[in-house]
């Protein structure tokens, strides 16, 4: 049964021992962030802060999706499912999109403030990392925006920092879906309406970070992932729709031609790369919330955190697999390891012709929503399991020719890529890298292609069978 909201998700995590409820007072000023970061770095459980300094009645849920096990719980799957099976299941479900349904009354509108009564400081937005540019109310959430010329509604995870009682700032790159929509509104001389959803059910939150592609509404993908439609309710002050069971909804408009200094912020890359600079401003016209709301947060940084196990390995594969399958390439698997933070993709393939690695690269790097993020591609042949990092690293070390196996070409970059110079970050210069870890097709199997030295390849089937049958009698467990 699909999980209906953050509260049910907390209960489910409780049942499998994947959450700690912190009852002592915790400070929103760095302490909550430090705890969430620590649990991410130790592969610890999720955390629900039930007693936040200065904010009685409010709660913060951190690291709720920072492990594959908790993601599986959120998707109502076996918590022990393998990563390959989880990736396959997410891809299949995401591609069977289900339209949402609209409800008239919603828990997320139990409390409503508008206009002069709006006060973002009434919510326990954490100072996530010491030195961050401000209190980030939106770190595990999504921002709803609508294409000005079609019915396409985009959900995207764009960070939001509190400037004042009714203003927020945030990074919204021009290459992002919302960034492109904002440019269209601006060309018409209009502000862009938005709704920020905090504390939706886990699947909606995951889908909000998935780069499913232009023209595809993440709410339909969330429906497919859940197996039942998402229930939406109309916002109080604009026409956007938001999940009815969300904890907090912030309604307003992204102001045309207005910027304020925003950032820096500790990012999913594991660094604080982009400098503080002028960025878009969100004016808040209304806030709605449930009683005793749960503010969901992520502490992005060094792997592994929520983004590394949802957006990266589960979200990125959706548009990549879709395009590779459309081209009928003999792909055996696609994986975006959490440790590569979305900057690198591994594709396994059969090798019917030379340079299939660059063929795959042109397709993978053509995924528009990955521009500027995903810059490295490792292509392995079908003797390598792309989900097994030992095998992949071995292939990089032994099969990738340091000259012939490496291809680079220029592309656009983002301020978030740590390896770029400051000038490259700000001007959008970067490169793509392809590591071809396949043997050339023309290599003779007897004289050029080296045989693999492994249990499977070095012994007759008879010998393998004998050893396996006697394994325990040799004394092994």
């Amino acid at each position: 049964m699909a999980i209906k909201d953050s509260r049910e998700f907390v209960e489910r995590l409780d049942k499998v021992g994947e959450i700690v409820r912190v009852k002592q007072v915790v400070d929103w000023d760095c302490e909550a962030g430090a705890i969430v970061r620590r649990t991410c770095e130790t592969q610890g459980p999720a955390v629900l802060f039930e007693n936040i300094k200065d904010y009685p009645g409010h709660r913060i849920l951190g690291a709720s999706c920072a492990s594959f096990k908790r993601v599986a719980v959120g998707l109502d799957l076996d918590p022990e499912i393998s990563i390959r099976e989880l990736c396959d299941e997410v891809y299949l479900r995401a591609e069977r999109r289900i339209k949402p349904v609209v409800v008239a009354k919603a828990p997320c509108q139990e409390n409503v403030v508008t206009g002069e009564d709006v006060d973002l400081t009434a919510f326990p937005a954490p100072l996530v990392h010491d030195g961050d540019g401000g209190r980030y109310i939106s770190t595990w959430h999504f921002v709803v925006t609508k294409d000005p010329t079609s019915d396409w509604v985009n959900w995207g995870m764009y960070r939001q920092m509190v400037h004042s009682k009714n203003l927020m700032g945030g990074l919204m790159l021009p290459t992002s879906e919302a960034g492109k929509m904002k440019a269209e509104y601006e060309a018409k001389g209009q502000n862009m309406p938005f709704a920020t959803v905090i504390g939706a059910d886990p699947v909606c939150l995951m889908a909000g970070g998935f780069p499913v592609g232009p023209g595809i509404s993440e709410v339909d993908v969330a429906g497919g992932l859940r197996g039942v439609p998402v229930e939406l309710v109309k916002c109080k002050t604009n026409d956007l729709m938001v999940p009815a069971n969300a904890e907090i909804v912030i309604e307003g408009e992204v102001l045309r031609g207005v910027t304020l200094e925003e950032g820096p912020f500790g990012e999913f890359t594991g660094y604080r790369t982009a400098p503080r600079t002028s960025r878009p401003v969100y004016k808040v016209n209304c806030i709605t919330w449930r009683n005793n709301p749960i503010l969901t947060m992520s502490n992005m940084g060094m792997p592994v955190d929520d983004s590394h196990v949802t957006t990266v390995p589960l979200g990125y594969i959706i548009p990549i697999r879709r395009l590779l399958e459309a081209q009928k390439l003999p792909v055996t698997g696609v994986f975006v390891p959490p440790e590569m933070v979305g900057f690198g993709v591994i594709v396994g393939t059969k090798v019917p012709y030379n340079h299939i690695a660059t063929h795959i690269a042109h397709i993978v790097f053509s995924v528009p929503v990955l521009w500027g993020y995903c810059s490295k591609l490792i292509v392995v042949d079908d003797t390598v399991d792309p989900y097994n990092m030992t095998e992949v690293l071995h292939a990089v070390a032994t099969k990738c020719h340091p000259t012939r196996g490496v291809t680079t070409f220029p592309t656009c970059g983002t301020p978030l890529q740590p390896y770029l110079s400051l000038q490259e970050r700000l001007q959008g210069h970067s490169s793509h890298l392809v590591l071809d870890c396949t043997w050339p097709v023309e290599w003779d199997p007897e004289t050029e292609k080296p045989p693999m030295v492994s249990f499977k390849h070095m012994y007759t089937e008879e010998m393998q069978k004998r050893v396996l049958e006697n394994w325990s009698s040799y004394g092994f467990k």
Partner: protein
Amino acid sequence: MPKREYDTYCDNPESLSEGEAVIMVRELTPEAPRHKYLSKLVKAVLAREPEKLAEGDVLWLRWQRGRKFHKPWAIKIIEELKLPG
């Protein structure tokens, strides 16, 4: 009465200009704890040596990626300006 404290981000704390300027600061010691870190756009006088601006408050400096500069400056806010929007 203890001095109020603010901070601001800059390209290089070593080469920040002294004197009057319009800058964005964050309030670090507000009366309401919930208002800590809110943005303020101010016209202010800045001084590298706090003793040169005895009536000023404390201004901490941070590099653009968040690292705190070891030595605070002084700030005397002349006027708080309205944030755009």
